[in-house]
């Protein structure tokens, strides 16, 4: 490996002009990667899918625990989430046919392909379960479908983390080990929060627990992720829009969990306020992660510096 030559004067000048640090060389400060082309539907889908998935598990657990009140409310959330999610995806794609295009193949290497099948199976299960409940027909099939949805729920809540981690976006890919936990925690928190809001206080204790536990796990998860990413790659989560969302998310999630944890047992209003905050926190956290990906793609430093370090440490290891 050659020693790194001096940055040329004009290049440096251009870098400074574009606010890119001088420690990475680049082509006029232009990104190496393309920013994702996904629109705002996608983080909302991450949220709604996660919410629906976790809610399905919650509903099933509630049913098993005999908490019919809670199970019923949670199922409503599942239904809403399952209905909204594909709409969001199709809206991002532009036309419904484009969604079906994905059902022509199954590709284990593509989390989106896998996810599409998970979402479809989940949606179908939820649909059958709901139809059976409402129409009162095929109760066995209905229950079976409900169970299927419950089992698919955790997958639906976490595959989206794999989806974004399975890209070249540094702050997503390098966080591939932590991201599913954040998504899972955040999904659980939001499912708990949503169910807690809808369910009478007495029946909602597990939901509240789930919300508070999920919220704390979410905050912890994000913290762990940033630490593991290191100073440079944590930057995109802390700067700009992503940073703003992240700070709001932490505040909302933390405050929501506190309110719900401390006053939720007694005051419905505290549950509603706390729950709303937890939900908002979960959505904001998805937005933060989403935006951080764009921000890191936009600035070549986040691509170049870690790769350069990786290269150099490998070269050192090779002697």
């Amino acid at each position, binding site marked *: 490996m050659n020693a790194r030559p001096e940055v040329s*004067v*004009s290049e440096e*000048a*251009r870098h400074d*002009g574009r606010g890119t640090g001088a420690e990475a060389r680049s082509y006029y400060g232009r990104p190496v990667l393309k920013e994702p082309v996904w629109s705002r539907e996608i983080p909302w889908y991450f949220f709604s899918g996660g919410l629906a998935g976790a809610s399905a598990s919650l509903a099933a657990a509630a049913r098993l625990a005999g908490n019919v009140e809670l199970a019923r409310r949670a199922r409503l959330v599942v239904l809403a989430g399952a209905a909204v999610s594909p709409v969001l995806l199709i809206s991002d794609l532009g036309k419904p046919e484009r969604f079906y295009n994905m059902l022509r193949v199954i590709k284990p290497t593509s989390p989106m392909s896998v996810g599409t099948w998970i979402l479809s199976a989940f949606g179908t299960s939820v649909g059958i379960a709901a139809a059976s409940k409402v129409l009162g027909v095929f109760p066995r099939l209905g229950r079976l479908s409900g169970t299927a949805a419950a089992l698919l729920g955790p997958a639906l809540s976490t595959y989206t983390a794999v989806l974004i981690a399975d890209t070249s976006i540094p702050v997503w890919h390098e966080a591939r080990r932590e991201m599913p936990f954040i998504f899972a925690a955040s999904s659980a928190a939001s499912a708990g929060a949503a169910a807690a809001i809808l369910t009478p206080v007495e029946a909602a204790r597990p939901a509240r627990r789930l919300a508070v536990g999920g919220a704390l796990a979410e905050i912890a998860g994000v913290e762990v992720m940033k630490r593991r990413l290191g100073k440079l790659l944590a930057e995109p989560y802390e700067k700009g829009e992503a940073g703003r969302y992240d700070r709001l998310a932490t505040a909302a999630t933390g405050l929501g969990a506190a309110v719900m944890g401390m006053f939720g047992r007694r005051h419905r209003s505290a549950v509603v306020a706390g729950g709303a905050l937890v939900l908002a926190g979960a959505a904001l956290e998805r937005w933060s992660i989403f935006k951080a990906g764009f921000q890191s793609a936009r600035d070549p430093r986040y691509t170049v510096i870690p790769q350069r370090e990786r290269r150099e440490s490998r070269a050192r290891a090779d002697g």
Partner: protein
Amino acid sequence: YDVDTWQYAGMEVSGSAGKREQGGVTGEQAHYAQGGQLEHGEPTEMDESLEHPRCVFQLLKKHYRRYTPEAVERICGCPKEKFLEVAETLCENSGRERTSAFCYAVSWTQHTVGVQNIRAATIVQLLLGNIGRPGGGIMALRGHASIQGSTDIPTLYNILPGYIPMPHAHAHAHQDLDEFIEKNAAKTGYWGNMRAYMVSLLKAYFGDAATEENDYCFDHLPRLTGDHSIYPAIMGMMDGWCKGFFVMGENPAVGAANGKLQRLALANLDWLVVRDFSEIETASFWYDSPEIETGELKTGEIGTEVFFMPAAAHTEKDGSFTNTQRLLQWHHKAVEPKGDCRSELWFMYHLGRKVREKLANSTDPKDRAVLDLAWDYPTLGTHEEPDAETVLREIGGWDENGDALESYLPLKDDGTTTCGCWIYAGCFADEVNQTARRKPGSEQSWVAPEWAWAWPMNRRIIYNRASADPEGRPWSERKKYIWWDEEQEKWTGEDVPDISPTKRPDYEPPDDATAEDAIRGDSPFVMQADGRGWIFVPAGLTDGPLPTHYEPHESPFENALYGQQSNPARQQFPRGDNPYNPSDGQSGTRVFPYILSTYRLTEHHTAGGMTRTVAHLSELQPEMFCEVSPELAQERGLENGGWATIVTTRSAIEARVLVTDRLAPLRVQGRTVHQVGMPYHWGSKGLVTGDSANDLLGLVLDPNVHIGEYKVATCDIRPGRRPRGPALARLVDDYRARANAHAENGGARA
């Protein structure tokens, strides 16, 4: 300026090309050259010892004594080491085993010393033995397709096809053919046969009407009365005596210096015909131009009747291109032209036909020239396109039996041969379009003589006798090209020898020999009267026998070598509508402290008519810009990507700024000078538009070939966009006033 004093002692020669008859705007006495007087093929006075103080070698030494590497650095700003690196590389790669070529284009020519720049290369290449040998030469990298062709079969006013001079009206009112030949032909060398070339040309022009009795219609040829080149003609439009203008494949409103003058001139015509692919600026000036914007022109007040005629592209017509190494390559029509698009050949032929029809019954003697023309080309297809191959065949010539000529050697001066351009004779040999040959390189020798056709006589390297030593042996095995074969008693090798095939290397001409026979067997330069390469040029140039350093017309520096600042023979137009910036030594020089140069981009072509109209090229260079060094950017507060206004006494234009180390400031004569570089491709039409660099330049020309000094002027540059409307004129006026270069004195040197 007395050109007679340049002649060799003991003999008078005329140039083989260029100015044979002096005379132009500067109004010198015509210079009639006689054929050389050679004794046994040698000039009468020669000094083999090179010691005579006035022999060429001693003159050369004396003249260039001061042109040292240090002087190069001081005057040009090119570091001495870099210069020496180039010089040494050149010398190391010249000799028996190696040759070097000079390839130049407009970086050398677009100066008031343009021709002398090329002359300098001639001297170097002759001294290094790089002429007439494979890998050697001086190559003009021609710009437009067939620029070479348009000099061979000229669109120029002062020569006829094959570099035969145009007859002049001065001196003798009634110069006849014999007198013309006597004054212009050399006795010795290939120009000794000029009469045969001229008569055959007249036969091509006038066919049966050209007879010995009427001097082959020599009187029908127009006579020069002065400099009729394009720029004086433009002045003529301004001044109202030039009333009509055909523009075919040119865009002077953008491509010619002093754009404003060009457009004002167009606006002063009675009629204008523009033939092009799209409505270029030259056709749209009357409603869309900077002058309309400033209010200097008003559409309603312009009297010019503009005819725009759509042209067929080279893919839509048959024809030939002649490139820099004199290679004629035929192109075939691939598709029919669309709509009303037609070729130039179609246009000229049918225009001529209609004019002749209208004049058919005229008895006016001045119409005879038109009526006597041999104007009978067969036409093809529904468009009645003249058959281009019949035109080529006429150029290639035929003999008394009507059979296509093999070469120019059989040309006769008795009216039995016809040939549209003597140097092209043979391009239709064996009744085959030789220029359309496309034999793959893998199927023939490395010289590829069967790819297309080169003039003269399909010779690929001209003066190739020089590729063998005086005894006729190759200089080296590596560089062998043609040589004397003693057994066969003839010249042989890879190419068509540029010497009569059986002329022995030791041939000495008898004293009464003429034309080629008067050239010795060891003299390769057969076009010259003495068979020699001319290091010193005794005739043919208007500005001097040896290249000499002059500063450009507008320069921030004084001439470090001579008291004479700029080329004294340069052609100026000192008039109010063509003002000049002050040059060094004049007051106000510091108002325009920077050097301005213009050049091309890969992505656009010249005035842009063919590229700014194409999206896939426009996107690659979408905007007019100027280039400055970081130092100049700092000095003037210019920002990369921002706007700048560039000002001269002619006008002010705006351009985006590129700050780049490529335009390094130069250290010249102990001072730092900054340069502003600009492409000149933009105008107001097309997909991408912008101000034209040529609006900044003034018209000042090389005296020999009238090429403009497009590569140097002085300017000022300031941040921001230019003023709009009348405010633009005020800005320029302000600069003029400050520079004391007011329109009244034309900015000419005091």
